[in-house]
């Protein structure tokens, strides 16, 4: 039974929604560095600190590398930790992202998705987070400001789950979401605090055989991040993969638990299907573009075209089985990538979705559309053209070019 609590409707942009979510579950430490288009998050958060609305230690670091390092060390002392960044900042964090996931520190981070240099650009694409695909972080993508708010709250619960213990990054499209005002339903601080719960720290056995909480604690000293040569390193990495498998289940559970308090549900938490069940043609995408595709799907459905959209909410861990299940009856699929894997023959999402469908016989025809790099707008008309391409593909029984570009000059 649903026990949806009373919520308040606020006009927030994506960044403000993220900051609002981060203020609610008693975060102990926020260490961050300003970078467009994430800046509003840390500015807003520092206001909360100044107003005494949170009891968070807020640290202005001198770089993102230091910000992530401070978050990692705060987290391994048992503190609930949050940060936010964007493309060049995320790239500068690269080294520490691996250390954070390797130390199993459940840091939650918002990433305002932005293009990487060069040429210098501040607008949205996914080249920043896609470049960190293999950093061992859970990657969740928001479609709108509401989902960004919800994902940050869910992120803490997922990251800190004892069977997961992995850092979570929540991607929200730069400017499109970060700077656009939307109606956002927010829960009360109390409800969020109760939902996320207190930070539970798992117990581990020390080399002396003592059972102690897994954190830096003067009473029970332990070393974090010590050297593990060929004798042990491999096992650590295999454990991280195990944690990712567990996260698949946990993300779904948290999605359901969140529905109970908020009334909002996002598919099974990993994937969100819209008109895919009986679709002939479908688009697979992530982030804010899903909204545009939904509109076009509605129009096409009215015209009698069986179109659908599959939104990937969790890109890491990737719900392979769910993707197969969702797309097995679809005849032609367009996978949209907002980043490039130069020389790789298509984008990262395309590679992974196509790979997921390999064992199906017959499998749908899958093509790749690279779009929106450096913030280039993608219109409903262009989405419609993609669906038309897919229909033509089915009629002609011929796939043609595997990798295509949307709205590219020349």
């Amino acid at each position, binding site marked *: 039974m649903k026990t949806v609590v009373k919520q308040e409707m606020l006009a927030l942009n994506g960044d403000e929604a993220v900051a609002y979510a981060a203020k609610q579950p008693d975060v102990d430490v926020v260490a961050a*560095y*300003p*970078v*467009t288009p994430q*800046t509003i998050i*840390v*500015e807003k958060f*520092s*206001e909360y*600190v*100044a107003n005494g609305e949170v009891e968070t230690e*807020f640290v*202005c670091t*001198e*770089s*993102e*590398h230091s910000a992530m390092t401070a978050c990692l060390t705060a987290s391994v002392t048992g503190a609930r930790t949050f940060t936010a960044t964007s493309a*060049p900042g995320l790239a*500068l964090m690269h080294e520490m992202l691996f250390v954070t996931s390797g130390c199993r520190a459940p840091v939650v981070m918002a990433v305002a998705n932005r293009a990487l*240099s*060069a040429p*210098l650009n501040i607008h949205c694409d996914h080249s920043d987070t896609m470049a960190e695909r293999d950093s061992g972080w859970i990657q969740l993508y928001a479609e709108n400001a509401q989902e960004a708010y919800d994902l940050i709250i869910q992120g803490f619960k997922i990251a800190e789950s004892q069977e997961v213990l992995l850092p979570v990054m929540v991607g929200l499209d730069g400017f499109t979401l970060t700077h656009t005002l939307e109606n956002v339903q927010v829960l009360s601080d109390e409800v969020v605090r109760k939902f996320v719960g207190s930070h539970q720290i798992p117990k581990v056995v020390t080399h002396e055989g003592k059972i102690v909480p897994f954190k830096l604690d003067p009473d029970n000293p332990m070393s974090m991040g010590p050297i593990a040569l060929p004798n042990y390193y491999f096992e650590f990495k295999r454990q991280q993969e195990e944690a990712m498998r567990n996260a698949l289940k946990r993300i779904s559970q948290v999605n359901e638990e969140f529905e109970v308090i908020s009334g909002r549900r996002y598919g099974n938490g990993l994937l969100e299907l819209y008109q895919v069940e009986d679709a002939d043609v479908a688009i697979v995408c992530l982030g804010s573009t899903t909204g545009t595709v939904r509109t076009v799907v509605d129009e096409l459905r009215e015209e009698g075209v069986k179109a659908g959209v599959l939104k990937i909410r969790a890109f890491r861990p990737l719900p392979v089985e769910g993707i197969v299940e969702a797309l097995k009856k679809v005849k032609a699929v367009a996978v949209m990538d907002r980043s490039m894997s130069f020389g790789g023959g298509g984008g990262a999402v395309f590679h992974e979705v196509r790979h997921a469908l390999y064992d199906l016989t017959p499998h749908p025809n899958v093509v790749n559309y690279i779009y929106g790099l450096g913030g280039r707008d993608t219109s409903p008309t262009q989405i419609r053209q993609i669906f038309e391409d897919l229909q033509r593909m089915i009629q002609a029984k011929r796939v043609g070019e595997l990798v295509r570009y949307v709205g590219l000059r020349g």
Partner: protein
Amino acid sequence: MVQETVHPLSKYLREAMIPHIWCTGCGNGVILNCFVQAVDELEMDLDKLVVVSGIGCIGRAAGYTNADSFHTTHGRSLAFATGAKLANPELNVVVISGDGDLFAIGGNHFIHAARRNIGVKVICANNFNYGMTGGQQGPTTPLEASTTTTPYGNIEHPFNLVHLAAASGATYVARWTTLHVRRLTQSIKRMLQKEGFCFIEVISPCPEIFGRRNKMRTGLEMMDWFKRASVVENFSDPSKAEISTEKLIVGEFVNTEKVSYEKFLHEKISQINEKRVGW
């Protein structure tokens, strides 16, 4: 007959890039003006001039200057400049960047460039905050100053940039404000003629982003502060060069000679090559 008048310094600027992005009351235009004035007075060869800048408002200077230029990633202008200078020591490599870029993420590059005395010349626009991203606290933000990330007043001690540069080994160190147009131009000229690592800090008004949060709403009010508080103390101890509401110590603090890194490097290479010939 209408005669088209051309600004005598326009050949140093890429006019297609103008209008610039800088706010009303910003000091970056003054700094760029002083720089091109110095280049003009020295009759420098534009083909041998490289302007490198990092991220931030003043970072646009690389794009506005009609010389070979590189607008680099955040904090790395000195690393890029080091590469250019070593590849071709004949080039005059000038870094024009901000306090946030050069001394936060770029801080490590700065102290090591100064330590090894590479012949790169640095002009740093210091506006006390990260202006471009909306006015956050940075490495030069004064104690108690209000910024968007320190609405309760800054609790971190700022860098004294001239002290840092001098202690790190720079052969020329000066500080001016954008009010000291002629002194700044002369200082840039002097710096451009030197061999080793040189550093000029230019205190620059940022009324839109920094000033209005700190009781100086307009460029004029900030310039008033410069006028009221500036004291020229040439060759005084840079560790005592204070920046406060009451006092802004400006002047040339260091002017020495030291063999540059690229000279040592190329001498070493010649020595090794000579030995090889002997084999």
